């Protein structure tokens, strides 16, 4: 039998997993791997910093549903991946990270560029491997993809000592995967599902709370179908946006700290929450003891550890969102066919009223460039059909509030970790995953400077993403907190005019232009969308614009600060 190297085996296994693209950065301990890659038709995107590779793999995974792959060398290469891995872990995104490691004989000796990456990354990976024998490679790679992409998805790291990549192995060598402790529950307990159906039918004021799990399990269609027959308003988490169309009358958009007031009030008044693929993060619940005081909770999640972790649950259903919702829709339909359709006119008109009374707002009459106006125009001009990536901070919240997401996998945003610098590399990954789509990074001037070197990655690879920079010259979200809670003492948050972004993007070979006037906004976005290159539009927005409404930290979500309450304080 023909022998191949470990490195060649890795490439072979990756191909078997259907990997089409890898984001990475070479170094001493992965030279053999890159050498094998040289002969392969797997596309490799050379990033400019390994964090970018992990985020790009993450963005790719979010828009395609496939597992993203990134590679880094040992030591600093591997540690540079960690933020990206942690980000994927918090948001349950399937990625496989392959790191080089010093030779097996040198492990533990503080060898040059040695880092205990499996130890460092253990808390932020779903699982990780240190491969100590070339014969383990095929099994480990298979297991890694299985683990990353099934159950509650997440990142898996494979650390591969350099000698393993040069050792020889029979080309057809295989070992069966062996995961005796890994059996995610997919099918929800039918008795629980029936109880849930009955409870929902009896509820007077139910809301559905849909999270990232609905999107990752591909349950958006069945969710829509269920809502159509059950007529229950839908609230989403940030990661759940797009799971239910925001232009539907039953959509209440996002709840939480910067969610809509009507979503937060609906939670507060509801008698039942049907939570699907969400984990009741503190950014959503606000003060936990006062969250949804009237509501019983049905919690559907694939991860049993999420159920009952933050809130008390009346009916838990452990299972895959799509499978459980399919059963639930079925059971619910049977139940109401027998017992009649529940009358919820009152609740639905209350919901309608809440939406009318508390719309998201901003000063539309202002002649300054308002960030919300920019996002609304982006929505209009892309007809709601773009993939929107965001950075972190105010820009992220404005994007979430004012772009209307109607399809799953169209918002790519760092939820759990809140990682500044995620948006640009994630947009690169997203555009590679969905070249047919317009991919936009709604950026902040602080965030993008954490990863601006990736402009080079985008331009050299002709990845024509559009960056809409909401430039306020501030670390705006932190400044907002300082304004509200620290007497406007803007300690270390002003970054005004510290770089000419237009020149910066031009230096990398992209196109940039600046917008300082409201009347130029629309034209600039149109132009950006038309140009066949990477474009950055530097919107000089109203500098001290705040994100409203806002739940102050520690407050219940029913108490939201609004612009009128604060202006002039």
């Amino acid at each position, binding site marked *: 039998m023909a022998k191949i190297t470990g490195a060649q085996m890795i490439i072979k296994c990756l191909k078997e997993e259907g990997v089409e693209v890898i984001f990475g950065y070479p170094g001493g301990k992965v030279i053999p791997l890159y050498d094998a890659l040289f002969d392969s038709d797997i596309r490799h995107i050379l990033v400019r910093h390994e964090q970018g590779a992990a985020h790009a793999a993450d963005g790719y995974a979010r828009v395609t549903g496939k597992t993203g792959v990134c590679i880094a060398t040992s030591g600093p290469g591997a540690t540079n991946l960690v933020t990206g891995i942690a980000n994927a872990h918090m948001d349950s995104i399937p990625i496989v990270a392959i790191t080089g490691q010093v030779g097996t004989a040198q492990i533990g000796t503080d060898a040059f560029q040695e880092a205990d990456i499996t130890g460092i990354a*253990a808390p932020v990976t779903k699982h990780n491997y240190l491969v*100590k024998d070339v014969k383990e490679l095929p099994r480990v790679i298979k297991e890694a993809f299985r683990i990353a992409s099934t159950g509650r998805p997440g990142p898996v790291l494979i650390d591969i000592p350099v000698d393993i990549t040069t050792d020889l192995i029979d080309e057809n060598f295989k070992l069966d995967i062996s995961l005796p*402790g*890994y059996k995610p529950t997919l099918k929800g307990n039918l008795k629980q599902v029936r109880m849930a159906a009955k409870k929902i039918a009896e509820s007077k004021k139910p809301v559905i709370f849909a999270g990232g799990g609905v999107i990752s399990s591909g349950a958006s269609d069945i969710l829509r179908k269920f809502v159509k027959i059950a007529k229950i308003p839908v609230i989403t988490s940030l990661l759940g946006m797009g799971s239910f169309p925001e232009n539907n009358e039953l959509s209440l958009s996002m709840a939480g700290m910067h969610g809509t007031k009507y979503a937060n009030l609906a939670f507060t008044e509801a008698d039942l929450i049907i939570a699907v693929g969400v984990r009741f993060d503190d950014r959503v619940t606000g003060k936990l003891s006062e969250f949804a005081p009237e509501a019983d909770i049905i919690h559907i999640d694939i991860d049993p*550890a999420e159920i*009952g*972790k933050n809130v008390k649950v009346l009916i838990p259903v452990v299972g895959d969102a799509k499978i459980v919702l399919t059963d639930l829709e079925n059971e619910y339909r049977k139940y109401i066919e027998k017992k009649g359709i529940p009358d919820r006119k009152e609740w639905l008109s209350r919901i309608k009223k809440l939406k009318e009374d508390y719309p998201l707002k901003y000063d539309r009459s202002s002649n300054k460039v308002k960030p919300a106006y920019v996002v609304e125009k982006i929505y209009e001009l892309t007809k709601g059909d773009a993939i929107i990536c965001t950075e972190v901070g105010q820009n992220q919240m404005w994007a979430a509030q004012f772009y209307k997401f109607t399809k799953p996998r169209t918002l790519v945003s760092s939820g759990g970790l809140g990682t500044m610098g995620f948006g640009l590399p994630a947009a690169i990954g997203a555009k590679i995953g969905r070249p047919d789509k317009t991919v936009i990074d709604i950026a902040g001037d602080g965030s993008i400077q954490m990863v601006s070197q990736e402009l080079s990655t985008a331009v050299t690879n002709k990845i024509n993403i559009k960056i809409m920079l909401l430039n306020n010259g501030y670390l705006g979200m932190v400044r907002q907190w300082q304004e509200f809670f620290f007497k406007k003492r803007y300690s270390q948050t002003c970054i005004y005019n510290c770089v000419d972004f237009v020149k910066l993007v031009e230096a990398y070979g992209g196109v940039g232009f600046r917008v300082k006037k409201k009347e130029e906004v629309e034209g600039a976005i149109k132009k950006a969308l038309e140009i066949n290159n990477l474009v950055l539009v530097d919107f000089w927005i109203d500098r001290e614009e705040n994100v409203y409404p806002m739940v102050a930290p520690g407050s219940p979500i029913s108490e939201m600060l609004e612009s009128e309450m604060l202006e002039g304080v």
Partner: protein
Amino acid sequence: MNHIISVLVENKAGVLAKISGLFSRRGFNIGSLAVGPTDDEKISRITLEVNAEEHSIEQIIKQLYKLINVIKIQELDPSNIVERELVLIKVSADSKTRPEILEIVSVFRANIVDVAKKTLMIEITGNSKKVKALEDLLRPFGILELVRTGKIACTRGGKY
């Protein structure tokens, strides 16, 4: 509340680190810990003693289950188990105190495993209560060193 949980894991490098890491990361304390292979050498059993509220124990168990190398977890019912720990106690002993110590040791059905001019080493196995009682009686003589294993436990009767 003290809980004893018994965890079957794949006998692989790094598994113990993953488990202890999980405990510290999630803010849980391990009271005692014992690890060893089972009759199947591919599988090890980790017995953990944890002091925590009911709700936390539930979280610990669920979080442990998420570790890929964890195969099975049981929370043992303290009223229906045999639990043991093994303790070695080195105690000061001279010709005057030695007989008295020997008497205590025999009452406890413990063993003398080393005799030296000024010391005795005592081995005792039993549940925590018994060990503690012996420890208390020996303390006045001067305990020089005390080494204990983690607690291990097994359910009684046909349930396993």
